[in-house]
């Protein structure tokens, strides 16, 4: 294999990995604060992608003339709407189970996942839907690698957002409240923090990030399918675990690592094995380094 091919595979992996990272953020933030693996995250990613299709549809001709403005509107609106959906999910599926054994909300999150995906399947009739083409497909050649404008846009938006979330958690009052709840929820409540709202807000933020990832995914691949949330939800979960679940920068590190590793997998194994490799990574991490690359929780590192 040539050096050029190696570098190109790394770039491919980083682009797809940044989308994984964005979805992984939702897993990791929720886990860091309430110790719950929110499997509905994959469905929120899918819901965000489908809302993006609907928004582009409503924008109609405007989006064809101003594709970048259209994309910005789709990203913001889809994030807000999916954040709202995450609010509903938290209110209906998790809050009533707050004091139940930990297994109950986990099962509830799986049920929510399948519920959302089934609703999308029923509404769209399981037909793949298409995104408009936002940017040209003609790639740039940067040294030995080629990079499509859309791919660069995706990586930049995803990494900027993850940086923004890291800053938000570390530097703002709400972020401080999140970290406080992660350390000790009861003590945080006694300090006057509205823990209920902070937890809800964390869910919403995770949902919004999943929606952004969903819309970026749609723009990159041009086509969304009703079961995309299953595979990408699990890959993002793998990324969160690999990076260190509960650790915000870990989501980025995990996402990029999974992206690059699965990209490399095709060098050594037939192409069909690409998806299996991702989950082999998950098993290996859980067996060998369960705390992930960057270690455990956001609060302990704060």
């Amino acid at each position, binding site marked *: *294999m*040539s050096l*050029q*091919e190696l570098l*190109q*595979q790394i770039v*491919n*992996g980083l*682009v*797809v990995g940044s989308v994984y990272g964005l979805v992984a953020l939702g897993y990791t933030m929720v886990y860091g604060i309430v110790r719950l693996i929110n499997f509905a995250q994959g469905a929120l990613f899918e819901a965000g992608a489908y809302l993006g299709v609907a928004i582009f549809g409503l924008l109609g001709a405007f989006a064809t003339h101003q594709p970048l403005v259209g994309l910005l509107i789709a990203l913001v609106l889809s994030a807000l709407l999916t954040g709202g959906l995450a609010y509903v999910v938290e209110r209906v599926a998790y809050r009533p189970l707050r004091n139940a054994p930990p297994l109950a909300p986990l099962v509830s999150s799986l049920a929510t996942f399948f519920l959302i995906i089934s609703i999308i399947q029923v509404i769209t009739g399981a037909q*793949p839907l*298409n995104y*408009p*083409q936002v940017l*040209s*497909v*003609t*790639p740039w*050649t940067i040294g030995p690698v*080629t990079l*499509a404008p*859309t*791919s660069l846009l995706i990586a930049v938006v995803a990494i900027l957002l993850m940086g923004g979330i890291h800053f938000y958690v570390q530097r703002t009052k709400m972020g401080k409240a999140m970290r406080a709840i992660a350390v000790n929820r009861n003590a945080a409540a006694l300090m006057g923090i509205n823990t209920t709202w902070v937890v809800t807000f964390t869910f919403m933020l995770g949902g919004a990030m999943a929606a952004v990832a969903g819309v970026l*995914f749609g723009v990159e*691949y*041009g*086509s969304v*399918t009703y*079961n*995309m949330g299953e*595979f990408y939800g699990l890959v993002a979960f793998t990324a969160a675990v690999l990076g260190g679940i509960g650790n915000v920068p870990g989501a980025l590190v995990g996402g990029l690592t999974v992206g690059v590793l*699965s*990209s*490399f*997998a*095709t*060098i050594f194994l*037939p*192409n*069909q094995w*690409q*998806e299996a490799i991702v989950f082999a990574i998950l098993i290996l991490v859980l067996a060998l380094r369960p705390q992930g690359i960057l270690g455990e929780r956001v609060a302990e590192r704060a």
Partner: protein
Amino acid sequence: MTTQTMGNGLRWLGVLGATAGLALLVAACGSPSTTTAPKPQLVIGFANPITGAEATYGVSDLNAVNMAADQINAQGGVAGHKIKIISCDTKADPATGIACAHLFVSDNVNAVIGFFNSDISIPASGILHAAGIPMVSGASTNPQLTLQGFKNVFRICGTDNFQGQVEADFVYNVLHIKTAVAINDEETYGQGVSQYFVSNFQKLGGRILSQQGVQATTTDFTSLLTQIKSLNPGAIQFGGFNPAAGLLAKQAKELGINVPFISDDGTIGPLFYQTGGTATVGAYLSSEPAPQDLATAKGFVSEYVSKFGNQPTEFAGYNFDCVHVIAQAVLAANSIAPASIIKGLAGIHDYHGVTGVVNFDSVGNNITPQYLIYRVQPGGGNAVDWNPNTKGA
């Protein structure tokens, strides 16, 4: 063309329909004896989906078959035998379609045209084989139909395998490209087309640099395409369906792979362009021709349009030719006995129909089937780019 099956729910309705049809037929057969027909009629059973999801095709095929019969009858019939078409609606449902086959057997028809869907044609051909009735298909493209060892089965349209052959011919001899990679979606249809592309391309002297299977559900092909890029192929061939085809075409362009992309009639249609966007413009797609795209079918199309007020669909021309080919076989055998028609069909030589030249090989496939290479135009439409029957173009 893929086959499609509707539920079995219509089975009883089908049996009921078949029984009613039989009753009507007995009544119908009873009356014409009073007319002055010097020779017995040449009765052709025609089975297609006349109602249901695929009715657009079936109705158009029925129109074409009736048109051919009327033309021949207006000229005095086939050596004096007037053609009578008995139409049976399969509803694209195998159980109903098989009831049609039984109906034809009990009616002692002289020949059958049908059954549109490959998954009906295959079991129905067995029933007709047992009864010794010739069957000509103008729409079922699954290779299996003619691989059962039945001497009574003939097919005018191409098979899925021929597509791969036409693609290889086009890439090697028209585009003058000598290296290619072949990708398929690991489903029977896509694998078949791709495999036949590979073997024919190699037979012509071309080199296949890599042959890859992908999962139809995959959305990210960039790492596969990066490997392909380093192989520096002259063309990329894909056997399968959308969205995989559109995604591959798009991601190849995004990686700077600017070589021709060739796919098949599983891909042709609006979804390819919707998924792949402008990256699909210029891609080549093999497909059986629409009659509108055939120079030989100009007269057929204009007469059809003036008679029925709409355009004939993809397989109407083939079904029109089916009637004429059966008539030719009757003339050659000088008999309307089913066994003689089978012999006559096997001996068909260079029949020039509206869809092209018909010659049957030993298993009953047309050895000069029509497949055209279409090219995706800006805006997503398809235009004929190459016709293998006018080679060198």
